[in-house]
């Protein structure tokens, strides 16, 4: 057996240049210091994304993307198909966990200033992936065609209509018409299972390639201490040492997912009725709550501007600045400029947490 394994590996090595791949894998080392724990988040997000791909493919086998069939097909998956409840619950739970992990990953990278030269593009590709993940969440939410999803999509796409000049065009493009109908469902299905996965795969490849090429960033504080000799410069190989630790984390995540899916199976709700009233207490998924709550606080007119437009502009501008932050915070070190950006991050995080809490309670 062992002999056969070695011979197979030799055979593959000869043809595929295994040494090159091995060298590429071994090139990356993971620094060991008191913030090493944050390095696990990217791998965790990637793992949850893989779970999404696998369970998503399984759900595709029974799901029907039409206004007449969607709710019934999900109901069929939940009640008739063996382990269907498990697959769908894991898909939903894993989606939410992934978005949460991606949030934490983003903020940890932000506060550790890992976006500084030469990793600007890693940050930008990561931010684009973040928006793609939110789009996955928004489009996937509609697919069971239940009441909550229907109204969340109605409100969400209606907001796009406030964008100056092209707003109405975006709204009609997203909805596949003037209203949220079966045409919207088919469109969102297309986005969710074809367009977004395609873009996500390309961005993910770029993101991972950059991480592998540039290696892990050491926070400026730790870097300084290593330079001054106050802290030892320790690291471990990514492959296999860190990867094995990663896998331990993934194993744990699987346990959590299985437990969540079994104890709290994802609700289906009632079938959407386009001509029924919106139910009381309607709100978007938790990751959009801070925007939802901000819009609630904005008056309908601020000077001459629509409240919604103002909110949209606010989030648009802040989002765009957040993407290009490596180019703004280019004096990273211990300057006042960089402290200002750290403060900005604390404010953004606080804003998201406080507004989300206000929306929930």
């Amino acid at each position, binding site marked *: 057996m*062992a002999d056969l394994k*070695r011979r197979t590996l030799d055979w593959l090595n000869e043809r595929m240049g295994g040494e090159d791949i091995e060298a590429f894998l071994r090139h990356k080392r993971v620094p060991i210091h008191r913030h090493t724990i944050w390095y696990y988040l990217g791998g965790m997000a990637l793992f949850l994304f893989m779970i999404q791909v696998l369970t998503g493919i*399984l759900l595709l*086998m029974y799901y029907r993307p039409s206004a007449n069939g969607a709710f019934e097909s999900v109901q069929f998956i939940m009640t008739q*198909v*063996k*382990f269907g409840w498990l*697959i769908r619950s894991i898909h939903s739970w894993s989606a939410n966990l992934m978005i949460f992990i991606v949030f934490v990953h983003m903020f940890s990278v932000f506060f550790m200033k890992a976006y500084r030269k030469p990793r600007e593009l890693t940050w930008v590709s990561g931010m684009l992936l973040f928006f793609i993940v939110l789009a996955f969440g928004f489009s996937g939410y509609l697919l069971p065609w239940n009441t909550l999803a229907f109204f969340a999509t109605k409100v969400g796409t209606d907001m796009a209509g406030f964008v100056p000049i092209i707003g109405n065009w975006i709204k009609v493009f997203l909805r596949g018409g003037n209203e949220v109908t079966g045409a919207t469902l088919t469109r969102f299905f297309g986005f969710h299972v074809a367009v977004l996965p395609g873009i996500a795969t390309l961005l993910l490849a770029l993101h991972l390639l950059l991480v592998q090429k540039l290696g892990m960033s050491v926070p400026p504080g730790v870097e300084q201490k290593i330079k001054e000799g106050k802290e030892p410069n320790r690291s471990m190989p990514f492959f296999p040492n860190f990867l094995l630790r990663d896998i331990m984390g993934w*194993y744990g995540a699987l346990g959590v997912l299985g437990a969540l899916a079994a104890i709290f199976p994802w609700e289906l709700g009632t079938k959407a009725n386009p001509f029924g009233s919106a139910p009381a207490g309607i709100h978007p998924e938790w990751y959009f709550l801070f925007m939802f709550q901000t819009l609630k606080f904005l008056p309908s007119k601020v000077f001459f501007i629509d409240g919604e437009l103002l909110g949209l502009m606010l989030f648009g501008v802040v989002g765009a600045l957040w993407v290009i932050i490596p180019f703004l915070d280019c004096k990273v070190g211990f300057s006042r400029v960089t402290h200002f950006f750290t403060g900005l991050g604390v404010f953004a995080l606080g804003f998201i947490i406080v507004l989300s809490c206000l929306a929930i309670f």
Partner: protein
Amino acid sequence: MKDDRNPGKSVLHPEDAKVDPGRRWVNTLLGAGVVATVASFIYPAIRYVIPPPVSEASNLSVVAAKVGELKENAAKVFKFGSTPAILVRTPDGNYRAFTAVCTHLGCTVQYRSDSHEIWCPCHNGKYNLQGRNVSGPPPRPLAQYQVHIQGGDVVVVRNT
């Protein structure tokens, strides 16, 4: 690789033989754990992709046509449970009903009024008006159903 020279002496590769037996035991346990985990993922996935059985009544009775709807030497294909069936009115005016699923590769057959045959266009299979496979690749006759005239309806019945 060197094991060939000392047959029976050691089945382990020299490098594997260096591994501590305790460590080997841990490796075996870890491997078993991984296999069990993978099995616990694959099993639900396999059960999931097998579609749940669609329960269909073994006794089925369908109104295939109205009396007088079909002329002599004509036929119609209708929905019979979850599969198509064919109701033939023979040139002498009798009704006969068969499954419309060709016994060769499952195409839906049709009636040829020119040759008085049931014909499958996919591979030129032919059945006579008793449903017998008389020409071409079909291996078996078409299953026949009972036909009753009830009031103004032509009712096709399957009892199993």
